[in-house]
Each structure stands twice: as C-alpha cells, then as structure tokens.
C-alpha cells in the first residue's frame, strides 16, 4: 500500500482537518498560556502592561501560526526539514556576526516587530532534521558507526554555535533533545553508555580548565555552578537569585499567599520575575496547589503528544512529535529545577508561561507540526 493511497483515502481534507486536530492538546496549550497571562498580570502589579497584553497578542499570533502549520500535510514539513535546519544554521551564523548583545550574550536578531532568537528555532529544526534523517535511513543501518556520526555532527554543530553565544542552557537543551531523538530512533544503547561516560569525563575536564588559559566556560558560568552547589557562599551576590527564589516558592505554602499578594515578587526580591522565575511567583501566590496544577497540565501535554506519536504509523511523525514533546519537557524540567534550587541558573524560560516572544512562537509552530502529524496520520 503506497503512502499516497492511504493519504488520499484516510486523511481529512478541507474544513474537516479542524475536526481531526488534537483538540485536547490545543485546549491544554491555551490553559497553560492563560496561566501565564494571569501571572504576568500579577507581576506587573495588577496591570496588563507591560507584559500580559503583548504576551496575549503573541499567543494569538502563535495560535494562528499553529493552525496554519497544522493544515499543511506533515510530509511537506518532512521535506522542509533540511531547509529548516540549514536556515537555522544560517541564522546562528548571522547572530554570531551581527546579533544584538543582551544580558552579556549574543542571542537576538532584531526583526523590528520582534526579536528572533535563532537558538529557539534551532531546537525545533534539529528535531525535524533528525526525525527526517531516521525516517530516510534504512532501519538496519541505524546503529552503524558511520550513520551514527552524521546525526552526532548535526547535533554538535549548532550546539557549539549556541555555546559560543554564550548560552549554556540552550546548548544543553539542544544536546539533550538531539540525544533523546537518537535514542528514540533506536540507536544501540552502547553508544549512549559511551557518551555518558565521555560526558562525565568532559565535565571533569571543564572543571579542571578553570583558571587556565583554555578555560572552557565563562567565569559567570563557573560562578553559577558554584552558587548552585552552595548558594550560601554568596548570599547577596550570585546566590541571591536562588535563595530568594526558594524563599518565594517555599513561603507559598499549601494554598499560596493569594493572587497578587506574593511579597517576594511584588517587592522585587525575585529576579527576572516575568521571565525565568515566573514559576516562583505562581508557586508563591497559588502555593503547592497552583504549582502542582501547572505541572499536571504540562504532564498532560506530554501525554497527548505521546498519543499522537504512538497512534501514527509514519516514522517521521512519531519521531518529530516525540522530539518536540521531549524539548518541551526539557524546557520546563530545567526551569523548574532551577527555581527550586535543583539546577544552576542557566536562563531557561518556563514554556508558554514566561514572557518572551520568539520562544513562544517557535513552540507554537512546533505544536503546529504535532497537530499536522495528528491530522495527517496514516490510519
């Protein structure tokens, strides 16, 4: 049975595509984003400006983008994977050469109406190109060294580009997402064992490089690691963020301190309260109940992606959906670990909640691909 045949027979067309969308996923995304609007309204001191309103506009835009992408058949996106990947690499090079400096890192391209962060686009492009690669690669070749080297290079090149910006958080996310996709594709587990062993070795090397001429991480990155390991060493400096974040989170208690009543965020003890630390505000104002609710919503999003991935027979669709879900998971897992003092402050926003245009748009586009895979799945 040819792909064309079942595509023609069973994929919905026209307006019916809307009915075949993964609606629970759509509703979950809207709920999470709404929670974000509420928190942005709160941290602005009870005002839709300067954050909540632009965020809503962007979410509206993101939703539109998601629908448009969802309506285009998944195989088109598969064919676009390589283009997307090369385009992202190109953007990374552009940002390297002409990017705007922000927060000590070269990360943005100013497009006038928004700031484009190529590393965000790269997260999705990487997943797409790897999924397309394993879709194209005959299964029996998956674990052959030569065919393992190619995806590794595909992962490492953008990772190093991002690391150079420097954006440690995103480069780790890229590495993890890429590795995760290779794992899903069925690469032999021995490779992963080897990489993990090498990784441990690398970390040891990185730490040994400290203070030498070939230092691999910036001083601020080392300091972040130091304060992560022992925030009390620098309670007013670098450790301040983590300490204040933990205080805010812990003081929320079971029910929270009430909407717009969080003293830590309202009185500016929390750093970056509208971006990286927005979960802390939520946990402070709505307590354990609020925090766990958001976590459950995130978990449900993962589950509905999983449903899409496992109900399709198309390998690209499965891989790209799972890859996007993994990316999404890494986003919020790293962010939450960070604000709870379980991970260093690496500057990863909370997906769909933190204020930030390009991250949200890219995520919505990615979910558009998931939706497309869901609509156009071979049945």
């Amino acid at each position, binding site marked *: 049975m040819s792909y064309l045949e079942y595509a023609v027979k069973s994929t919905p067309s026209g307006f019916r595509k809307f009915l075949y969308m993964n609606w629970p996923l759509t509703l979950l995304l809207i709920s999470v984003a709404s929670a974000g609007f509420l928190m942005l309204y709160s941290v602005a001191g009870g005002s839709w400006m300067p954050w909540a309103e632009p965020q809503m506009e962007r979410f509206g835009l993101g939703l539109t983008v998601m629908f448009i992408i969802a309506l285009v058949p998944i195989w088109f996106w598969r064919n676009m994977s390589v283009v997307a990947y090369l385009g992202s690499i190109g953007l990374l090079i552009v940002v390297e050469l002409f990017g705007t400096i922000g927060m000590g890192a070269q990360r943005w391209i100013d497009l006038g109406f928004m700031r484009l962060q190529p590393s965000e686009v790269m997260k999705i492009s990487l997943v797409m190109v790897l999924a397309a690669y394993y879709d194209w690669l005959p299964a029996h070749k*998956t674990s052959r060294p030569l065919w393992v080297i190619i995806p590794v290079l595909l992962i490492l090149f953008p990772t190093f580009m991002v690391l150079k910006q420097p954006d440690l958080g995103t480069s780790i996310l890229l590495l993890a997402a890429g590795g995760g996709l290779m794992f899903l594709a069925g690469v032999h587990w021995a490779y992963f064992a080897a990489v993990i062993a090498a990784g441990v070795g690398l970390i040891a090397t990185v730490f040994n490089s400290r203070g030498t001429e070939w230092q691999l991480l910036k001083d601020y990155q080392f300091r972040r690691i130091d304060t992560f390991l022992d925030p009390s060493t620098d309670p007013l400096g670098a450790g301040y963020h983590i300490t204040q974040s933990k205080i805010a989170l812990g*003081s*929320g*208690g079971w029910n929270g301190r009430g909407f717009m009543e969080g003293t830590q965020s309202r009185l500016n*003890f929390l750093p970056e309260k509208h971006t990286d630390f927005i979960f802390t505000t939520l946990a402070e104002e709505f307590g354990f109940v609020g925090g766990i609710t958001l976590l459950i919503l995130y978990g449900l999003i993962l589950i509905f992606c999983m449903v899409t991935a496992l109900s399709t027979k198309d*390998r690209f669709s499965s891989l790209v959906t799972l890859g996007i879900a993994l990316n999404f998971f890494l986003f919020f897992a790293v962010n939450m670990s960070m604000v*709870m003092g379980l991970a260093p402050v690496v500057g990863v926003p909370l997906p769909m909640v933190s204020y930030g245009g390009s991250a949200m748009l890219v995520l919505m586009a990615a979910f558009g691909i998931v939706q497309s895979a869901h609509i156009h799945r071979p049945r």
Partner: protein
Amino acid sequence: MKQRKPKPQGLAYKRLPRRALILGGLQTAFIGGLAARMRFMQVDQADEYRLLAEENRINIRLIPPTRGRIYDRNGQIIGQNSPSYRIVIVREDAGDIDSVIAKLSDLIPLTGDEIERAKTEMRRSAPFLPVTLADQVTWEDISKVAVNAPALPGVTPEVGMTRQYPRYEDFAHVVGYVGPVSDYDLSQIEDPEPVLRIPRFQIGKVGLEAKQEISLRGKAGAKRVEVNATGRVMRELDRQEGLAGADLQLSVDADLQQYAQARLAGESAAAVVIDCETGDIRAISSAPSFDPNLFVRGISVADYQMLTQDKYRPLANKTVQGTYPPGSTFKMITAMAALEAGVISPSSTVYCPGYLKVGSRRFHCWKRGGHGSVDLETSLKRSCDVYYYDVALRVGIDKISEMANTFGLGVKHDIPMSAVAAGLAPNQEWKQRVHGQDWLVGDTANASIGQGFMLASPLQLAVMTARLATGRAVKPRLVRSVNGVEQPSGAGEPLAVNRNNLEQVRKAMFSVSNSRRGTAYRSRIITDDFRMAGKTGTSQVRNITKAERAAGVIRNEDLPWERRDHALFVSFAPYDNPKYAVAVVVEHGGGGSKAAAPVARDIMLQALYDGTPPLEAYPAGDRDRIKEQQKRLEGDRRPKARPDEKDRA
C-alpha cells in the same frame, strides 16, 4: 504530491514505541521528583520560608524620641528642641546632579567639602534615599530654595529637631550641651541602644544633659515598614510610639542665675546660691562662660581655640570642678571642731602677737602687729590666724578633718553636673597614704586656716555655709522635678553637733559683716529683716618666701594675675531665719573682703528681694555707686539679639 514508499516495519522501527515508553517513564519520574521537591518546600518547610520572606520585606525603623525639655524653677525654658532646617537631595528625582547642585550653590552658600561629601554619600546609597546637602540652614536660604523649587528637581528643604539653649552663656556650665553621637561615645557605652545609631542623633555630652541623658532621651518608638528589594519603603505596617524624654525642672532661678553671671562678668569667678531650707541650688554661676549652642552645631576650630586659650578658662566649670584653698572661710570648721572637742569655750582667749612659733618655724598672722587677746567672736570677726593655729594644734587634724566632712567639705556632693570635685579635707592617714609622709604640726597649722592641702569647691563652701546656718545636713539639689514629679528635698537631718556651739559660731559670723571692725562690714546689708552673716577668705596660691618677707609684703595688685590671692566669701541671710547661703570665689581677685564680699552681698540681695533690691538695703555711702552698677548690669542683662536669632525670626 510526491509518492512515498511505505517503510518496512522491522528491527529498529519496532523499538520506537518501546523507547518512547522508556523515555516517557523517565520524564514521569522526573516530574514526580519535581512534585516531591515542591511538596517538601511548600508543605514541610513552608513555615521557615514564610519567616524568611517576612524578614525580607519587614523592616523595623526607629522613631527617635523627643528630648525632654529643661526649665528653671519658674518654668522659664532653658533647653528646648527647636526646628532646624536642612536641604536634602534625592538622586533619582534630581536627574543631572551636577547641574542641580551648581544651580543650588548659586542660591545659597555651599562649601566644596559639603558637596564632595554629599556626592560620595549619594554614590553609596540607594537612589531614592535623601542625602543632606546643607545642614543648619537659615530660614532665609530655605525660602530661597522653596521659591526656586521648580528649577531644582529632587532638592527639598527638611525640618528636623535640634537642641537649643535660649539662655546662651547663663546655663552653659549647669546644663552643658548635646552633640551628635560619636564613635567614641558609642565605644564608652556598653550595649548601646539602637537609637544611638541614628545618624546625627543628639546626646548629652557635658553637664546635666550628659548626667541625665537616660531620662532626657526617652525611649525610641518603632515602626514596622514594608520595604522592597532595594530598601524603598512601600508602606507602614504598624507603629509603636516611643516615650518622649522627661522634662526636667531645675531648682535654679534663671533670673538670679543671669544676674549672678552678669555680676561675675569680667572676673574668673564662681558663685553658688543655695536655699537653706530645701538645698535647692538657686544659682550656680561660673564666669566666664560660653555659648553652648556653638557646640550643638559643631564648634569651629577658631572659636574652640579662643575658648581653650583664654587664661580665664571659660570651659571650666569653677563651681563644682574648681577647688580652691578655702582660706579663712574654713575657720568656722576649725572653731566648731575645737568647741565640740571641748578644748576651747567661746570666751576662752588666745594671745596673738602676730605669729605663733611651731617648733622652729614661725606661723604668721595676716596682721603683722597681732590682734592681742582674742576670743572666738573676735577671732572670726577680725580673722585672726594665730587663734586658729593655737586651737588647731590642741584639737588635732583628724577632728578638724572629721568636722569638715560633717559640713560637706572633702565630700563629693551628688549633683548631676560634670566633673564634680570632692575637694580635700586632709588627715594624717591621707597624707601617709597619698604622700607617704608623716603629718606635721605645721600641716595642722596651715589646715586650720584653710591653707596647705585643704581644698574646697564653691559648691562645697555654699553647702558648708547652709549647714552652718541651719544646723542641718543640707544637701544640694539641682533637679527639682522630673516630668512634674517632685524630687526629694535636700533639707537634711540635724547635724550631730551642739546647738549652742553652732550658735556661737553663727554669732561670730554675724559680727564679721555687721560689727564695725568686722572684715566684711563694708559689704553689710542694712535692711533689718535681711541681716547677713558671713566670712571672708583670702587664700594664697604661692608661698611667701623669706626674701619676700624681708623685702616687705608685696601688695597683691603688684603681682601678676596668676599669682594673686583668691578672694572668697561665704554668707547666709537673713541671720535670724536663714533663707539663702551664698559662696563666692574670685580667682586671683585679691582680698576676700574687697573682691568677693560685695559680689556675694549683691547676689544675696538679689535673691532675697527676688529681683533688683531697693537702694535702702545698702549702706548709705555706697548707694550712688550701687545705683550706677545696677543700671550697668540692667543694660548687660537685656536680651541680646544674636545674628542667628535674627536669621530664624
């Protein structure tokens, strides 16, 4: 659309669902971990974190208490809190600080130092905190700033409280002054109250202000405010009012004090007036004095040098801190000691040939020719020295010293002023202990007429006189009431001395100023109801050498000021019903009868009449001169307009 071949479903393809489930399982486990961590922090440790959050946001700010005021016995204000103006700048409101400061310095005088200090402070503190640009600014300058406010963003005049002494020099030595807490002050106080750490908080530095610091200061209140991360106050949560400092009422009569101060002007002198009935100090003046307000503001180096280099020592409080050989004013004590010991009777006589030979040394009477046969009354009236040499040698120093203590000499009186001296009434044990030498008979002879080791402060002499006048252990009282609560009276218990002996001594003191041959007859009071009893004293500050004696006694006026005799006079009045005791010491003033007695008499009359006395109170021959003097002093006492006074008006 491009045709697509179905991929063979085998091998690695089959692994996908399995791997997806493994990865899903890992993700679920991680989410579970996050949930557990959240539960641990928000449920198990919530209270600790809540406490930390409260500590973050709640700040306790002190409300400085209002310092207690000081009044005289009639309610006239002596120490008060008056508004002081300063100009502050808030960095975040000012924008371009340099241009704002430049504009401001065109309007009001600003020194480069002040500007530099303010700029440094601004760099260090949060942008919303006001920084003082100029302190103690005149009202005129404040108005200029207020009028030009639109051109001076971030600059505001502020009003604070500062101590002010409206009686200027008159109470400098009594009340002292306050000043901002210094690091040295803090190091002297064990466990200092937090309020002392408020910048520029004023505490008593000297005098009553220092001694009564605790009750004058009051208790600081506190307010709990909510602050944000940068320390800006967002709102006040609650406040607990402090306790204002206690108002003190002095026993001193400000008008009398002012008179005494004016009467002493031009001399280096001290005068103390004590109420015999209550021990109230009605006046306690040390001249020259200084303006305590200078110290509150921070005295300039030039002004300070002027005060320290003056040979009349205006900073020294001569009333309690200065000790002088009491000279002949001590003779009452020697007489009392001898009478009590029974070695003399009031009528027993001693022959004065002009000297007494003690061992190989001659002790001279001030009158070279001698007084002839002298009894107690004559000895005091004419101040015969030989009489006292003689009786003292019979009584012995220890009894004299004991009697001196009974009358408050050599004893530190408990009054809240700085550096209250104990004086000295020496005995044998003291000389052995301090000098490691035996007491000599010559020492007794010297001590008997208040010379040698003997030292007393004007306050002690006034107390001695009050005790002689009343026969009670009068204790000086400076603070009459605290916050309206009357302090214990200083009337004292009757002294353990024979009434009759005391009466004899008092009678002799009466003769001193009322008998034609008395040493203070010229400074008597004529008014019958106000008859005064007293005793003159002239105490040497140098030893008269043999050579000098051979060359003939040099007249005091011919000596340099520092070597002239101290003039002393103690008195009480009215004789029949003693009301006031007055002691006057004029440093290097010459003879007591000439330099001290008229001053004491004038002050006494002023006290007795509670104002300017009628000329009829004075001996007829003196009235013209006294009239002149009263007119002159009246002029001096008119409230002086001060430059800074005009500025504030």
